[in-house]
């Protein structure tokens, strides 16, 4: 059994879309989960439909949404305070050192993050790389296992079959609650699954299907 799981992603909602089912499963086993959230998604395009946020109010609203999702998922959350869409321009070692301070304190047995260069958004690549670097900086005997999540269109062609294929169908209702806690984001992101002529039921089924598996690669350190 895991001792403590730390999830490291850059945006409020990455945890709900990407790993909510896995988080719920660990919480059901009584394993503590802490989400280190890199930014407040203050550069997001989705403002709600109709818009309920503007560029200046978005960070405060997304912070509230994140806390609500954390409540739904029954996990702790720490906000790292970087600015959305700028993480790749920060000093990599500085970000990694910052993450390592959290890891040294929390001492997780498992870290979940994005797979650098296969995670579409530049913040995903950058924070994933920094998280992997943070674990590398730890004493070999103290390193947690790292699960890296790829989301690019063709990642299985490039990286092969994921090492961890987590069926989260049993957790899908709570996962969708967590996704919808991100009010300004959910509708905009999910609209890509709407097809002409779809009923509300068909739409829900398509969304549930799409989010019913969570896949990860176990990061291999060469030293």
């Amino acid at each position, binding site marked *: 059994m895991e001792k403590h799981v730390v999830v490291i992603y850059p945006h409020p909602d990455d945890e709900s879309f990407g790993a909510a089912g896995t988080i719920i499963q660990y919480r059901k086993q009584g394993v503590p989960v802490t989400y280190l959230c890199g930014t407040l998604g203050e550069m997001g*395009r*989705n*403002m709600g439909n109709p818009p309920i946020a503007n560029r200046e109010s978005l960070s405060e609203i997304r912070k509230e949404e994140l806390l609500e999702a954390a409540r739904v998922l029954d996990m702790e959350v720490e906000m790292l305070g970087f600015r959305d869409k700028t993480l790749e321009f920060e000093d990599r070692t500085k970000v990694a050192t910052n993450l390592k301070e959290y890891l040294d304190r929390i001492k997780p047995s498992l870290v979940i993050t994005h797979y650098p260069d296969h995670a579409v958004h530049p913040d995903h690549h950058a924070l994933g790389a920094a998280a992997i670097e943070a674990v590398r900086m730890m004493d070999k005997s103290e390193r947690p296992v790292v699960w890296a999540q790829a989301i690019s269109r063709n990642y299985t062609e490039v990286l092969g079959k994921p090492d961890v294929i987590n069926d989260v169908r049993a957790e899908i209702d709570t996962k969708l609650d967590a996704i919808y806690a991100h009010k300004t984001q959910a509708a905009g992101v999910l609209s890509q699954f709407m097809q002409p002529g779809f009923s509300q039921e068909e739409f829900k089924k398509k969304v549930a299907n799409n989010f019913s598996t969570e896949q990860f690669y176990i990061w291999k350190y060469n030293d």
Partner: protein
Amino acid sequence: MEPINVSKIQAYLDDRINKSVYIHLETTNGAYASHINEKAYTVGAFIRNAEVKFTNAKIIENNHVYRVGLKLEIGWIYAEGLTDWTVTEENQLLLAGHDREGRLMVALQISEQPFSN
């Protein structure tokens, strides 16, 4: 935010001619543009807290979509595709262009104090 009101925005701009102000300017089609549609390009530009003085400022309407141009002593700033506006409690002017789904495509913002990080 509310649909753009030309006269109020023009008055706000006129009040700040030849004063030092901070600009936020961005345009984006989203970091996921070419992920969701393989044929799309992901593009964007972003400036936050450029300190400038403008000597002229004008808002222009075209079919309920607006452009705002600021003439600087040694250059220009403009934004196109603006649809909505608000003034914050800190008296910052926020102008934004949203698409049909309410997503932000372009923003031009003016403040007498630096915008928060």
